[in-house]
């Protein structure tokens, strides 16, 4: 399989690749299947992306569904008209997804903005400096977060459903359904709590 490296400005039409490496500004016009996509510069894809690993340290925009085994975001990653299916998502940067993120494990220290985040284990601990907090009101947001184990910090969500749910500081949640152990930090607000849960004392 062919590898490709874009160091200046380049465009590919899509297809089957080994490693795609973007150090400059790259664009992909169609669907792409790759082993690894490594983005250190700026990348834009207009089709469906399937890959084993996507590692985004730069800035990436996907205008289509992304199916990947491991997605690592340290920079900015935007999925505009599509959803993400992954086994593992690790986001220390910022991710915006117009559709659903479905992942076995999602670990985020950065910011995530998605319509739905679902999977087995979802851990979002959005932390930014106090100064930055003056300008950014909502850290991570989602309409729905649904997983077996959920740990949240600094997340605004409409609905959270899970078996074991830990709500850390800085969360605003409208409805929460929990069927196992539940912890809610005193600095977070949860409007409605339903389900057969056991509340853990802080």
């Amino acid at each position, binding site marked *: 399989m062919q590898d490709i490296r874009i160091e200046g400005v380049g465009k590919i039409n899509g297809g089957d690749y080994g490693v795609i490496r973007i150090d400059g500004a790259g664009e992909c016009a169609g669907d792409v299947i790759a082993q690894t996509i490594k983005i250190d510069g700026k990348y834009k894809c207009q089709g469906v992306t399937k890959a084993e690993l996507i590692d985004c340290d730069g800035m990436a925009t996907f205008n289509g569904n992304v199916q990947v085994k491991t997605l690592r975001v340290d920079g900015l990653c935007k999925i505009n008209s599509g959803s993400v299916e992954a086994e593992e998502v690790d986001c220390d940067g910022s991710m915006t997804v117009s559709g659903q993120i479905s992942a076995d494990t999602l670990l985020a220290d950065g910011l995530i903005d998605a319509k739905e985040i679902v999977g*087995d284990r979802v851990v979002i601990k959005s932390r930014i400096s106090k100064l930055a907090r003056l300008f950014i009101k909502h850290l991570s947001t989602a309409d729905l977060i649904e997983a077996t184990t959920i740990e949240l910090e600094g997340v605004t969500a*409409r609905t959270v459903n899970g078996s074991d749910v830990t709500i850390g500081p800085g969360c605003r949640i409208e409805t929460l359904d929990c069927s196992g152990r539940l912890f809610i930090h005193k600095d977070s607000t949860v409007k409605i709590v339903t389900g057969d849960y056991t509340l853990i004392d802080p």
Partner: protein
Amino acid sequence: MDLISKKELLSMTGISYGQLYRWKRERLIPEEWFIKQSSYTGQETFFPRDQVLQRIKSILELKDSYSLEELAQMLSPEATNAFLSAQALSGMEEIDASLPPLLASIDPKVQYTFPEVVLFAVFSRAIRELRLSSADTESLLRRCIPLAEALKNMDMTCVVFTAGGSHHLALVKSSAPLQFDSDIQVLGSYPVSELAGQIKLKYNRKMAIKG
């Protein structure tokens, strides 16, 4: 359609959110079964009750002996290239005992394609439930054999109805049911996909694959 909510489904089957979404990603549970409806808490997801319960039961039974990828292939709505010999066909409990002799006279073959086998199984269910006379069965079977060609995708419903005194059979996409006028009487409708999935799983080892 009888629906089941996601919460009820999880508590009934004992599976977790993680498993449900993993199976969805592996295409073991089709995306069309996730039906979103608004509720007082915003939005809730529902599933077609019988189909999803049956599917989860088969996944739980088989997940230890097959990999998720193999399972996805077995349970996918697409037809396989498999063939079943006429002899194996007559041994299937899903096939009504009256069918093999009829087939031998109408459409004699050494082996039948997977869509044909599925069609015959659906057909058997229909004639058993509707108690069709042998004359009706024969004429209906004669007319419906070419329909197997249309069964490329198993996400269909088989509708049996009477029009002008004679029995007819139609295949329609499950998501778009047909509405008939008052002269036509619908006798029964039978979903194809579940039966197809069961046959795929049950007779996997007996089927010969033609590449």
